[in-house]
């Protein structure tokens, strides 16, 4: 009957297999891609695998993932098994009530579970981080354990257990000897399920993790928006291959054991159980090895730390290492995707980070809401000496008296376009409304930048809070939406390099990098004017490591460090001494990196819009995003 598989069935299985594995193969291929950009094939390389050993951020995230998964699995297996055993002895009504409650985290949407736990932790003033994530994972793991153990428990007759009691065994001993052996396969499969769910979870972790703590999932999500670091592909490829090998070998052992079934049933059952234990043990030992690789960061928390919250890809990682080497201060480094996301985090927990790097208008908002600390000038000599006076001058627009912020990077917002895909010179924001380029336009996924484009195009102030002007800008953006390929942040870079789009709104700092990778790209500041922005380092009012934070800021202002940073991130530095040290003349004199006075005169900085203004923009932005 089931002798041969039908060819149609084979083809169908093959298609599903292809569907499931195409993305995985792609990722493995990317892990050998010589180019940092996923849009380009830069030849075969093992570089990312080699880098992985030193990439403490990724390894830390991996270690966190495994530790959380392992502890959550153990705890939830214990609690879940005990609960399952006890439930079978309860009244039917109690039982179905408890099971109903248990299943909530499994049936409920992850986002609701995540949010509900986050609210609980906030209200109880739990410090979010390792512990809260662990609690969340245990909570959603328990149902998977019970799902596996309960049905098995129902099939086990209590008479053996009672017989053991009758023969004088202690209850726990009797349980261990009579019921546990029968329950073991169900417990193991429940534990494996819990472990897998825990490893794969993103959403619940995302809402409960707090600052300075990442699992692989949340790390990846924060990197998605700007293109994932290839080291992560390498790590995933390794994990995948290890698990694959583990599965194949355990399958083979099982198949071997299966052959002896007919001869000796009980021996075979014993064998399978042993194999299960072996599989679990080897899985655990691999987890431990991986953890050992990455042990450094997790438990070695000391008092000399600084919690840094910076924009994505906004520093040379080597700078962080140098800082730690020179000062002995450990850096807990986190990245945000937008100023608004940063604000939400800091508003929720002011002590989560010591030092932040927001943009001008957001610094103003933070000052307005009394969320920052004044800087002690005596502790930041480099900042006073090397940052150009004109930049402090500009900074007064959002930080009157220069009391709170030290400029870090500055630049403009403009249009990056592909010469081979766009006709004629680009000089106006209007081109972003040209139907000819439908589906070829990338907009910034940021409220202020998106509205800046629309407002500037109509000649309005880019800081307008006039409801009528905002209404018009909103309508314009809605009208533009069908032309837009995507609203992205740092992905503009990869997509423009990979010829995925013809036009993109981008920060000047990215223009230098992208032109290095794709010579057809050109950056322009439209004639209607644009935004000139300054990002600066500030210290949170509730910072716990103020001195370390000041040391961090001052370190970044050292000319050699500022230069290193500039060459890595290619955003214009306000560090005059560093500017003079730039070796490449083209860049030193580049109009993109350091625009001329005439261009700058057309540009404005953002100012804080105030609470009402923010609300106006938020509402309008939601309308734009939900327009078809």
């Amino acid at each position: 009957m089931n002798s041969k598989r039908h060819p149609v069935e084979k083809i169908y299985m093959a298609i599903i297999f292809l569907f499931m594995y195409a993305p995985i193969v792609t990722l493995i291929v990317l892990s050998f891609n010589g180019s940092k950009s996923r849009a380009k094939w830069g030849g075969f390389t093992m570089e990312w695998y080699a880098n992985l050993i030193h990439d403490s951020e990724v390894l830390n995230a991996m270690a966190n993932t495994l530790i959380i998964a392992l502890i959550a699995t153990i705890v939830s297996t214990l609690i879940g098994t005990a609960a399952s055993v006890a439930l079978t002895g309860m009244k039917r009504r109690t039982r179905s009530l408890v099971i109903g409650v248990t299943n909530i985290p499994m049936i409920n949407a992850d986002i609701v579970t995540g949010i509900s736990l986050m609210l609980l932790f906030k209200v109880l003033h739990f410090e979010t981080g390792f512990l809260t994530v662990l609690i969340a994972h245990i909570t959603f793991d328990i149902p998977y354990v019970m799902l596996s153990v309960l049905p098995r428990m129902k099939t086990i007759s209590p008479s053996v257990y009672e017989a053991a009691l009758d023969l004088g065994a202690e209850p726990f001993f009797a349980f261990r000897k009579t019921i546990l052996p029968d329950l073991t396969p169900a417990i193991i499969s429940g534990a494996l399920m819990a472990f897998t769910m825990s490893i794969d979870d993103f959403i619940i972790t995302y809402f409960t993790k707090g600052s300075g703590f990442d699992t692989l999932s949340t790390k990846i999500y924060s990197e998605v928006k700007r293109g994932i670091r290839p080291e992560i592909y390498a790590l995933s490829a390794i994990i995948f291959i290890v698990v694959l090998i583990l599965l194949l070998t355990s399958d083979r052992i099982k198949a071997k054991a299966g052959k002896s079934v007919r001869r000796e049933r009980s021996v075979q059952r014993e064998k399978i159980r042993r194999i299960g234990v072996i599989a679990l043990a080897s899985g655990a030992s691999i987890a431990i090895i991986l953890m050992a690789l990455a042990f450094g960061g997790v438990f070695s928390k000391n008092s000399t730390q600084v919690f840094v919250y910076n924009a994505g890809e906004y520093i040379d990682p080597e700078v962080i290492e140098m800082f730690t080497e020179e000062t002995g201060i450990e850096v807990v480094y986190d990245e945000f995707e937008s100023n608004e996301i940063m604000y939400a985090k800091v508003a929720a927990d002011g002590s989560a980070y010591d030092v932040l790097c927001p943009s001008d208008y957001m610094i103003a908002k933070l000052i307005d809401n009394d969320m920052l600390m004044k800087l002690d000038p005596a502790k930041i000599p480099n900042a006073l000496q090397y940052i150009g006076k004109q930049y402090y001058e500009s900074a007064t627009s959002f930080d009157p008296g220069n009391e709170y912020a030290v400029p870090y990077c500055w630049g403009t917002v403009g249009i990056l376009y592909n010469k081979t895909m766009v006709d004629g010179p680009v000089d106006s924001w209007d081109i972003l409304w040209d139907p000819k380029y439908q589906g070829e336009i990338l907009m910034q996924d940021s409220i202020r930048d998106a509205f800046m484009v629309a407002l500037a195009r109509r000649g309005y102030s880019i800081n307008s809070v006039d409801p009528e002007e905002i209404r018009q800008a909103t309508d314009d953006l809605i009208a533009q939406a069908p032309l837009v390929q995507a609203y992205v942040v740092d992905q503009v870079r990869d997509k423009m390099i990979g010829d995925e789009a013809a036009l993109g709104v981008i920060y000047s700092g990215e223009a230098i990098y992208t032109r290095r990778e794709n010579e057809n790209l050109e950056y322009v500041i439209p004639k209607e004017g644009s935004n000139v922005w300054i990002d600066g380092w500030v210290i949170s009012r509730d910072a716990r490591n103020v001195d370390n934070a000041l040391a961090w800021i001052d370190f970044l202002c050292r000319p050699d460090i500022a230069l290193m940073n500039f060459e890595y991130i290619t955003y214009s530095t306000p560090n005059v001494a560093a500017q003079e040290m730039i070796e490449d003349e083209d860049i030193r004199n580049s109009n993109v990196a350091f625009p001329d006075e005439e261009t700058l005169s057309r540009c404005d900085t953002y100012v804080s819009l105030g609470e009402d203004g923010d609300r106006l923009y938020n509402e309008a932005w939601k309308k734009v995003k939900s327009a078809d």
Partner: protein
Amino acid sequence: MFRDPKKAGTIASPYFVWALIFILVPLAMILWYGFTDDTGAFTAANIASILQPEHAKSLLLALELSILSTVICFLLAYPLGMILAKNKVSSQGIITTIFILPMWMNFLLRTFSWMTLLENHGVINGILEFLHLPGIHVINTPAAIVIGMVYNFLPFMIMPIYNSLSKIDDNVINAARDLGANSVQTFLRVTLPLTVPGIISGVTMVFIPALTTFAISTMLGGSKILLIGNVIEQEFTLTYDWHLGSGLSIVLMVFIVINMVVSALSEKKDEQ
């Protein structure tokens, strides 16, 4: 332990405490936030805001895409479940290989990888171009989101369907044939009805996460397409309005509860 409710209560008590603090209280929290405003006063405005066009639109779109994904998952999973159930011997291995193994490659990475595959100059279009076939424009459209949903949630449909199919005694199918039913009649009158519980749990396990996702829509929809999950996520991470976010979550929970009730009812009917 088995027949003594008191002892059973003692053993289960750590779990009861856990469930109370980390399942029930947090849910109460959402209700509290959802029905109050900044000042702590009662309001229904957070709930009612679902009627605002931008919220309603995102909810309707999320419903549309998640229903579509669920249907596609079902249509893909059922035949696969039948093939697997038919070839009983090694299928457990196959299922793990096909569906559990990919889970070890992070969910976001896998979804991210679809970006590389689906982009205008991505892998799939590259292959199509090589074959001199017209390219496809999928990335940043609802279709891409549906692909991402189907890809991520298909295993949750296949597993329960496979389980309920493999539980059917061969002789029940034989009996139907024996009583004169042809293969189509056997499928419609016996196989399909017997797998309804599996289908329902599969539908639940696909529909709910698809309805509430925000990561998939962000990654494959180019942030252009806002689902209800994105709106809620932004209320918590971007605009920082916990009350509105909770209110919208409550609306979402209504759909989840509807789904639960429907599946509970059909299970009960099945038990009778």
